[in-house]
């Protein structure tokens, strides 16, 4: 469903089937729609069998990194230690607003997914971490958990199986970085949300130092569908020639777009059809100029580059970008790219946890330089400096927030360099001359080329 728009016939609603239907929010309503059959089925299975179904389905993490969910679950062995499941409902990546819809329209679908995963990883306790700003999702999920306890679905004797399943909702307090998995664990432990150095990985020492699995809201919700309808059903959705990306995915679409909202399509859907047919292209007959396809942390594509892309992990990688969280940000021909990229850098500077110098200083300086350029106070050297800072920010820090800032800036500079140069040229009182050197090269480098 293109919530808040009517469903497009080319969508494949699995997770979004009941978006916009308030009756699906209650336990009775959810059960009437086939709810809790997956959990019942899972509880009757050996945890390893549940892991294997999810492994066979090819379901990959929907939080951004795309790690195969079943493989992640199989790291959890019955070792007698307490195990934890964390559900990542921190959803704060600009452009991404799909988990919010899952949680506020189908909270029981999430509870069912969390409980199913808990069984598969030998956990008795699961925490659903939801960002503090999500008042409506918090209310809906809290109510669903309460209903599930009252109905005996959760608790010491979950669904009468003798299995203990406790789920608690934990409210965040405003910090994008708490979406990073180890930062989320620190936050849950009552600490500052600083990411941890890995290893140890969460499956070895995660929440409270115990083996922990962390998954995104969409991943866990999809997992319950996989258990109920089988790996074959899930695998059949996707590009026939790409078995690495299976199933459906929710894409959030925002920015300069005619019909913003969430759309659920099978992975491998043609991006061109998606942007222009489903989402209606740019508003008011304008033209799309650029698209960030996977949440603000991934490389920007020009409109032309979007035309031949398939919307799956491999298709996006082939286009030089990433599927990420599935947050599609559209910029039309009225968008001021330097200004919007500067705003994005400001986001990362604000959200850096400041543990790593490269990130703390890099995000701040990137923002300062970009804003200076936008004020008409920049110089051509600033563009080189920005790319150099970006290099220093990539692959050197505890988590990838630092890289996430550098990525859209570098790709924006490469692909829309003329817009930056126009702002600089204007300040220097010169008529703007389009760059004569190939994009990606600096004026100095172009000058010294043979």
């Amino acid at each position, binding site marked *: 469903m293109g919530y*808040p728009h009517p469903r497009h016939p080319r969508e494949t609603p699995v997770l979004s089937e009941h978006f916009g239907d308030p009756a699906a929010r209650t336990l009775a309503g959810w059960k009437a729609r086939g709810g809790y059959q997956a959990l019942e089925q899972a509880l009757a299975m050996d945890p390893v069998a549940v892991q294997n179904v999810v492994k066979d389905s090819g379901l990959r993490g929907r939080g951004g990194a795309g790690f195969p969910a079943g493989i992640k679950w199989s790291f959890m062995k019955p070792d007698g230690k*307490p195990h934890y499941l964390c559900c990542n409902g921190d*959803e*704060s*990546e*600009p*452009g*991404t*607003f799909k*988990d*919010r819809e899952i949680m506020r329209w189908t909270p029981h679908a999430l509870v069912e997914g969390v409980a199913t995963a808990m069984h598969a990883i030998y956990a008795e306790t699961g925490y659903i971490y939801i*960002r*503090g*700003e*999500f*008042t*409506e999702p*918090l*209310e809906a999920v*809290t109510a669903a958990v309460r209903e599930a306890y009252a109905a005996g679905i959760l608790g010491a004797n979950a669904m009468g199986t003798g299995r203990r399943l*406790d789920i*608690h909702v*934990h*409210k*965040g*307090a*405003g*910090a*994008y970085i708490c979406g990073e998995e180890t930062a989320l664990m620190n*936050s*849950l*432990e*009552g*600490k*500052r*949300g600083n990411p941890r150095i890995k290893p140890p990985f969460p499956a070895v020492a995660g929440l*409270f130092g115990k083996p922990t699995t962390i998954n995104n809201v969409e991943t866990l919700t999809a997992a319950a569908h996989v258990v109920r309808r089988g790996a074959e059903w899930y695998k059949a959705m996707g590009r026939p020639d790409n078995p690495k990306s299976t199933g459906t995915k929710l894409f*959030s*679409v*925002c*920015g*300069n777009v005619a019909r*913003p*909202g*969430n759309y659920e399509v099978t992975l491998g859907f043609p991006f061109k059809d998606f942007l222009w047919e489903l989402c209606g292209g740019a508003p008011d007959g304008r033209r799309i100029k650029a698209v960030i396809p996977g949440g*603000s942390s991934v490389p920007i594509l020009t409109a032309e580059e979007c035309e031949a892309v398939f919307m799956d992990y491999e298709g996006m990688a082939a286009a030089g970008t990433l599927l990420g969280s599935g*947050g599609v*940000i*559209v*910029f039309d021909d009225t*968008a001021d790219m330097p200004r*919007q*990229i500067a*705003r*994005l850098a400001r*986001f990362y500077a*604000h*959200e850096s*946890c400041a543990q790593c110098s490269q990130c703390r200083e890099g995000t701040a300086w990137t923002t300062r330089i970009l804003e200076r350029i936008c004020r008409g106070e920049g110089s051509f050297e600033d563009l080189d400096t920005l790319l150099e800072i970006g290099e220093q920010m990539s692959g050197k820090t505890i988590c990838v927030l630092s890289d996430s800032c550098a990525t859209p800036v570098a790709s924006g500079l490469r692909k829309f360099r003329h817009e930056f140069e126009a702002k600089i040229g204007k300040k220097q009182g010169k008529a703007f001359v389009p760059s004569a050197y190939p994009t990606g090269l600096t004026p100095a480098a172009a000058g010294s080329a043979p």
Partner: protein
Amino acid sequence: MTYGPSAGAKLATTPAHGHDDAPYQPVFTGAARDELETLCARYPSRQAALLPALWMIQEARGWVSDGAVEEVAQVLGVSAAHVRGVLTFYTMYHQHPVGKHFIQVCTTTPCNLCGAEDVVNAFLRHTGCGELGVTSDDGRFTVIEVECLGACGFATPVMINSRFLESVTPDAVPDVLEECD
């Protein structure tokens, strides 16, 4: 409020606005203390109840004062320095009193593309705040810009205390403020 850790608890409330020189009155007494203990039982450590405890304080008092920091540290058995470190990390906790209606407008790139800055300016004008982060003279309003609220398809989302509004336009701002008592 119907959500969050303090749902259902009867907490003593004092006005949100204005620094108070009166001695600090503890929040975690009676039912609120019982509720905190219930929350603590959800985790293997008392420290893990720190974020929920700070939420309870803020819901009761409107902000988290130095006295509250001491109280939370004492009831959870952690140092006041630790509580302060956590308090200052998270943007949603107020370390100072704020207007009765705390207005947060998202201006991150996706919303910015859709004109979010005009929405901010409309709030600044119609509340009389004039400037970001400044509380209006009557103590009713504070307006701030906030980073992505996770509702980018509903530009521009605005939070007023715990009320989450979608698709707010500059023209709608007077009506939105009309609903604030």
